[in-house]
């Protein structure tokens, strides 16, 4: 499920990447597009956070099971 979401977001993002000829023009993107980068970044951070949280809980359970 998570992988599907990530794939869809990446495809969405790729619509905005067009072949830029002049190097100067690349710097002058409109500030609206920065939200795409920010949302991709936050999605990745969220995924990392969820994974670590899940690991944390699992290890906590293993430790409790071991100590009892």
């Amino acid at each position: 499920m998570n992988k599907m979401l990530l794939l869809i977001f990446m495809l969405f993002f790729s619509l905005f990447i067009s072949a830029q000829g002049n190097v100067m023009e690349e710097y002058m993107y409109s500030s609206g597009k920065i939200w795409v980068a920010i949302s991709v970044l936050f999605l990745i951070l969220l995924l990392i956070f969820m994974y670590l949280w899940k690991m944390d809980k699992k290890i906590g359970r293993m430790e409790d099971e071991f100590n009892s």
Partner: protein
Amino acid sequence: MEKLIRQSWWKISGILVLAGALLFAMKTPLSPGILSIEKVEQAEQTLSFELIGYNSHFMTSNGLQVWIQNDAHSYCSKDLEIIDDSHLLIGIDLPEILPSNLFSVVLNDDIDGTLASLDGIFIKGNVEPSDGNGKCYEQVKLTEHGYFSMPYRTILYETIRNLNFHVPMWFAMIFLTLFSFVTAILYLVKSDPRYDDMTVAAIHVAMLFAICGLSTGALWARFTWGAFWTDDPQLNGAAISTLIYLAYFMLRRSVNDPDKRARLSAVYAIFAFIMFYVFLKVIPSMAEFSLHPDTTDNPSFKDYDIEGKLKIVFRTATAGWIILSFWIFSLRYRLLTIERKRLDHE
């Protein structure tokens, strides 16, 4: 420490700090700057060129002034035509004898503040270093732009935002290797196997961050310096330090007896950290030439961040990344502890 590792308040606040810092890092606009000087035409005593600005507000600002400057000599613009928010057409009257061939182009208005393109324009003509007769600079009132922004730097432009990713990853690695150094010494002093677990876990996660740091650095270099890797002392030091720590894992793998393994790897970890610090910081500071900022003659980011705004975001981001790295380390350490206890019980 064991109790602290199990609590979640610092983990959640770490993630929030990191998320907040990165949001700021990506969303704050870049300071205005002069992107380039184009179509320089020189005819007798007049010079005309097109000035292209970045994130500039030429149309909405007041008091727009442009002049060319070399030390104390400045020549103001005679014709100033605003094409749009970032394009200007400038015409300047030149004297017969110039004080120098290389001039900086300076711009000032109330929204953008003072922008300069250092040594940005080359003027053909007779040169005689003299008093010069251009003093229009003194009639101009310089201003600073008022809003929160990232510094504008040539070569880097927008990629300066990477400062909140690449550098904190290296700081996290340095933090973890320092941590492993301390726990290795503690192991040799106290012979408690927990410290050995801590050392291994710390170096494991440090390697993860080193790889991230190297790859972000390589990508950044590709877009700013043109190549993925250059012959730079700090890059060489970073690569070699990564190799040293990878050799640490080879060492652990080749010894079977747990006590001997722990002891030998603690010795190597101490040795490796000292070498790592020397290779990353001491040797590059003795080098002659480097592309990295803040080494040899290159200006550091501090020089351009006059109001200290970049510093706040950067330090918050570093704190966030270090907390994240410590969380990953703590997970690894807990796993190793469980494995060791399981082995002890059998």
